[in-house]
């Protein structure tokens, strides 16, 4: 591990890292608190819903499924707790964590504060894959198609940005522009599929993919996004040093001993995989990947060792509550959770922009 004397800030300048140990302890404290909040959020979220089921009965049911005691709930209410609410809360947490993590990684690798899976076209690519297999009736292949679409969008974005060839320097603004182009093209493709194929009210099925929805999450969804998070997300969280190196620019990263091209491709492919898994179970949920890293950065600063896990935790908490709101605010009707994240995300982002301007 390279010992560094400085750390980068948002404007790419470098300042002494004198306050680092204190900040590190502070981040650990925040992290501990967030773990507790996430656990409490999950515990609470499963007790809230359109069906009136007592809090005690909810936890008795879950305990019974875990082999502790027996549940007194009728079959249907037990199913509401164990097969609807719990998988849904877990999927929301994993997807929120995955998207926030992807946002941090992409913002670091592209050195652009606007990068996130949504903006770079990964989410739209995954949506094209998902919507296509839904229309073709091959729903079994959905996670694979979403990942394929996500990877294809990423490859197109990077190629468009002129980044193939091992040592080519990736320009932060070019990759964003390329991402916008790819995202627009893939969104258009999804729209074409919709206009082409929908009859009667079948478009409603696809609406969820466009807006992002966690309704219909099952234990299979938990497995898809949970395994992806453990296999891809957790290693990503441990790659903070490599991400920090990118902040100095490709040349400096190389000087710090990072194989820039390989690291970039590995990191971006990992985010594509994680985004694909998230979109496969929830559609294209916007703003989480963009907003959460910025919000966390305002509290913890820019070093990725704290930013990665804290963003994942905040993303998980945010989406857990956003989805709880989505399924209960208009009970017995539901909102796609993507509407909730956009409604929360847009004003938060506006505040961030204003504050950032004041600081400059």
């Amino acid at each position, binding site marked *: 591990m390279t010992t560094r004397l400085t750390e980068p800030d948002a404007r790419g300048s470098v300042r002494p890292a004198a306050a680092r140990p204190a900040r590190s302890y502070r981040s650990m404290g925040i992290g501990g608190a967030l773990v507790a909040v996430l656990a409490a959020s999950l515990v609470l979220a499963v007790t809230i819903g359109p069906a009136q089921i007592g809090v005690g009965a909810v936890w008795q049911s879950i305990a019974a499924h875990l082999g502790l005691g027996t549940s007194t709930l009728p079959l249907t*209410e037990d199913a509401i707790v164990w097969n609807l*609410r719990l998988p849904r809360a877990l999927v929301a947490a994993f997807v929120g964590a995955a998207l926030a993590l992807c946002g941090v990684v992409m913002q670091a690798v592209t050195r652009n504060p*606007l990068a996130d899976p949504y903006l770079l076209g990964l989410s739209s690519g995954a949506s094209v894959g998902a919507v296509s297999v839904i229309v073709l009736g091959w729903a079994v292949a959905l996670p694979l198609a979403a990942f394929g679409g996500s990877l294809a969008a990423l490859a197109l974005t990077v190629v468009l940005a002129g980044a193939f060839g091992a040592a080519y320097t990736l320009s932060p603004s070019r990759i964003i522009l390329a991402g916008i182009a790819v995202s627009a093209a893939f969104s258009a493709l999804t*729209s074409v599929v919709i206009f082409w194929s929908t*009859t*009667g009210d079948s*478009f*409603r099925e696809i609406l969820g993919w*466009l807006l992002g929805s966690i309704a219909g999450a099952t234990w299979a969804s938990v497995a898809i996004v949970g395994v992806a998070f453990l296999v891809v997300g957790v290693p990503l969280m441990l790659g903070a040093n490599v991400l920090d190196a990118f902040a100095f620019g490709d040349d400096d990263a190389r000087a710090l001993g990072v194989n820039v091209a390989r690291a970039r491709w590995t990191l971006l492919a990992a985010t594509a995989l994680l985004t694909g898994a998230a979109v496969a179970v929830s559609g294209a949920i916007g703003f989480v990947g963009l907003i959460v890293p910025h919000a966390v950065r305002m509290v913890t600063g820019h070093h990725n060792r704290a930013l990665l896990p804290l963003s994942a935790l905040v993303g998980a908490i945010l989406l857990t509550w956003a989805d709880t709101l989505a399924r209960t605010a208009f009970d*017995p009707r539901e909102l796609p959770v993507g509407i909730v994240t956009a409604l929360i995300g847009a004003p938060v982002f506006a505040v961030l922009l204003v504050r950032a301007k004041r600081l400059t």
Partner: protein
Amino acid sequence: MLVMARSSLVAVVCSLVGALIIGGCSTVPATTSAGDSSVDQSSAVAGATAASVTATSDSGAVTTGLPAATAYPLTIDNCGTKVTFTAPPKRVLAIKSTSIEMLLALGLKDRIIGVAFPDGPYSPKWAPSLELPLISDKVPGEEATLAMNPDLVYAGWESNVSADGAGDRASLAAAGVATFVSPAACQEAKYQPHPLTWDDIFSEITQMGEIFDVPAAAATLVAAQRAQLIAVKRDSRRLTALWYSSGSKTPYVGAGIGSPQLVLNAVGLTNIAADVPMTWSSLSWEAVIAADPDVIVLVDSSWGSTKKKIAQLEGNPATATLTAVRNHRYLVVPFPAGEAGVRSVEAVQTLAAQLGKLTMP
């Protein structure tokens, strides 16, 4: 600038989605809740005798025997748009099954120059061997519509006659093309029937009879349908039902003020979504499971087949616990009959027949 590009992208997707939602069908909430079934049924009975012997002309004079011929020019208020007919329409473009089948039921097949956006197979009652000129599986654009030179565009949904569909109503009127939207599908609060009643269904038939100057055919059809409706035996077992139209992640169901509610009432089933003041609405699976309906009405369509819906219900461990699913208590209604129109009575008949065969413990 980058943010701008992003938000405009989002706006494009959102406007697309918005157009689809509007195109979907009634999503405008109304103020009153579900209709009282007893009122619906009694008004059907009351109207039956009147319509079978007499029909009223637009001047209000009651004639016995032969209904009066229509006096042109005829001006009507359709979903808030004034439409004037100077003669019976002869070149009609019909969009969606409800309008296509209305024309067929009134024996007006020869007035149809094109059909578009059908929701499924036509009822064999009026379509024994049918060759209708299908213009498009979807809603045709305004230019394609005008190129056919129709004198009437008869649409099942308001969105069919919008700038994103066959053309804005005012724009079509300026080109000499009259438009008519099935009044049951009117979206504006003042015009949307809430709740929809059998009189609303039958008055569209009467109004088409007036527009096309075939009042006798309309009166005969209304009388026949009222009689069929009265002949249906309402189920008295106080069973509850889910009207499952489409969707898998979040089901899209028949709610409290539209055609599904009207049909369920007539059959004697209690709609679990009767409290939602919409025609159709999304409903959370949790709410469905909490209500645990006795039977599930499956709306059969090419995009949401009965087989697919049953696989969805039985495949999801949560919905698999539903009483109706465990006991395979499914009733099936074809999608075109599920929308308000000349097949609404058919929907009641088929559901009542299927329900009669269901034995409950």
